[in-house]
């Protein structure tokens, strides 16, 4: 039980972090924002799914993907196709020359529903497809790349190219995909009107719950041996390979997990915002998603959520006030974070804020006990059985070690 607690929630500290996030999502924001703003927050939180996936792929796995928008988009499109078919019943589309098919198909002179749209009449198929289609796509890409040992910058560039190709494909095949406008005018889910305020509340809470679920799945992965292997692989791929591991299969796995999480975000986006378009698939949104993860801290699952929220709030604020400057600000922010705070907000928290909180707690408990509160003593003999060390503490540990002189050894 205790072990499971530590694994899932990252001990007491991780539990507190998760509880604060849950309180923010489920209590504070619904109480302070009206439904319009809350829906906006819900939209931002769908990006957080992608950012969490990137923490796993990029932060832990060292795989920088500049094409996560593909998976977000594919998940969103699978959801949108179901919703579109439901809102394109023969009765509601009887003014079209071919009633019963989505409006954009009719505009593009299609006279029958394309074969690959057929299964999306079924909700259960669509829900499976939301996860399966991006996962299979990610699997194909990653097997093709990682079995050939393509990695690093090359992988990033190739994912970016694939994202671009997918965008062009969606825009070009207007009759099948809705083109540049995307799939719009989505109304009901099994007869339940998703445009009402009540539905927006329900979807917001569902979104939040799924997000917390993804964080827990992420925790399970990074606290398992697989998580340590990913870190090991990021630093010494050859050593892992020559310890008897098939390195590429681990990379494929984490890339697919990242893709699936992004896809859940995409589907929730479609449900909450009411449309899906190629503007969430291409290069720019994909890079923005990397920025969310970088700002939040690429080694922190919870940080990624804050990163997505803060950058998007800032984006909304600045792009309303200075629309021309926004892209430059975003670029500047990314460079500043990578140069100055490579571990993002989570890194700032562990190295500046947490020591103060610890000192404050200790001060209240010990009644002015003057023990120095260095974040982690590099030489303290941590019992390997009890200590489930997080990489954040590893970072502060090596930081502390870097400040001190080389430890003396006999």
């Amino acid at each position, binding site marked *: 039980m205790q072990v499971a607690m530590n694994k899932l929630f990252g001990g007491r500290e991780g539990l507190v972090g998760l509880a604060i996030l849950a309180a923010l999502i489920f209590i504070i924001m619904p109480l302070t924002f009206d439904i319009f703003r809350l829906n906006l927050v819900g939209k931002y939180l769908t990006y957080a799914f992608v950012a969490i996936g990137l923490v796993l792929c990029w932060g832990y796995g060292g795989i920088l993907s500049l094409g996560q928008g593909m998976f977000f988009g594919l998940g969103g499109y699978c959801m949108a196709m179901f919703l579109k078919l439901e809102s394109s019943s023969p009765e509601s589309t009887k003014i079209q020359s071919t009633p019963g098919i989505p409006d954009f198909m009719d505009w593009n002179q299609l006279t029958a529903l394309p074969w690959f749209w057929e299964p999306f009449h079924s909700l259960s198929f669509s829900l499976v497809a939301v996860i399966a289609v991006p996962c299979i796509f990610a699997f194909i890409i990653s097997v093709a790349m990682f079995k050939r040992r393509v990695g690093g910058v090359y992988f990033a560039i190739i994912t970016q190219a694939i994202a671009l190709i997918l965008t062009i494909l969606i825009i070009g095949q207007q009759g099948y995909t809705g083109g540049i406008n995307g799939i719009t005018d989505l109304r009901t889910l099994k007869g339940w009107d998703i445009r009402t305020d009540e539905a927006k509340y329900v979807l917001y809470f569902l979104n939040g719950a799924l997000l917390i679920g993804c964080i827990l799945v992420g925790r399970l992965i990074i606290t398992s041996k697989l998580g340590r*292997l990913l870190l090991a692989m990021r630093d010494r791929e050859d050593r892992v*390979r020559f310890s*008897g591991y098939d390195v590429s299969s681990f990379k494929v796995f984490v890339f697919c997990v990242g893709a699936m999480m992004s896809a859940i975000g995409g589907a929730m986006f479609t449900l909450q915002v009411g449309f899906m378009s190629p503007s969430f698939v291409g290069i720019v949104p994909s890079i923005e998603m990397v920025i969310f993860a970088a700002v939040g801290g690429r080694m922190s699952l919870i940080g990624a959520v804050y990163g997505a929220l803060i950058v998007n709030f800032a984006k909304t604020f600045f792009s309303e006030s200075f629309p021309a400057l926004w892209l430059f600000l975003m670029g500047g922010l990314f460079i500043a974070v990578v140069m100055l705070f490579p571990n993002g907000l989570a890194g700032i928290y562990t190295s500046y804020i947490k020591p103060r909180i610890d000192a404050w707690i200790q001060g209240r408990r010990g009644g002015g006990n003057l023990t120095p509160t260095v974040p982690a003593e590099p030489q303290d003999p941590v019992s390997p059985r009890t200590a489930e060390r997080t990489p954040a503490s590893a970072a502060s540990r090596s930081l502390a070690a870097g400040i001190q002189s080389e430890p003396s050894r006999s």
Partner: protein
Amino acid sequence: MSSNTDFVLSIEDLTVSFDGFKAVDKLNLYVDKNEIRVVIGPNGAGKTTVLDLICGKTRATSGSIKFKDLELTRMSEHQIVRAGVGRKFQNPSIYENLTVFENLEISYPKGRSVFGALAFKRTAEVVARVEEIAREIMLDEFLGTEAGLLSHGQKQWLEIGMLLIQDPELLMLDEPVAGMSARERELTGQLLRRICTNRSVLVIEHDMEFVKNIAHKVTVLHQGKILKEGSMEMVQSDPKVIEVYLGH
């Protein structure tokens, strides 16, 4: 072509050429059970390339490498490791951000598939084995220490430990004492003699004093070919060897 299954490792007619340059040229090398074999030779003789070929890092142009009955030239790196061939790299190759314990645990030969690793549990058996190996490599005091903070010699031992925990039948070490202090060399020599029971060890080394201490048999490589093979005294007194290598 005949292959003798009494040998742990039999390399026959092994050739690898990089753009026409033959780094290893029709090499034949046989390693016995429980033998410590040292390979020496001047820079560029092809020593490290031979280890790369055995462990699958480099693919052979022609020839065969047999480990017991397995043809290694057709296997992938992780299959070769799982078959029982461990390799230590020239520079200490450890996971600097993980603790000594975690370094050894990752090398523990269980949970090597994706889902195996997800389900892997740190059982008492694993902990006991890690502690046993840590004692063997003189790092039992440092289990909780981040590996990046170890001294150079300790890093080398840690990497040897990471191989030992897999209990390989053939252990390949690339310059294990390079950059070590005299005391560390001595301890490493003792360590190698302790661990070579029940397994064969193939070592590349430049330090002649150290070679004399541990080797059962020495192979001298020169320009991708074997120049001489035999006991250290025999090799050291050979005029050809003196000319290309020892004399300089």
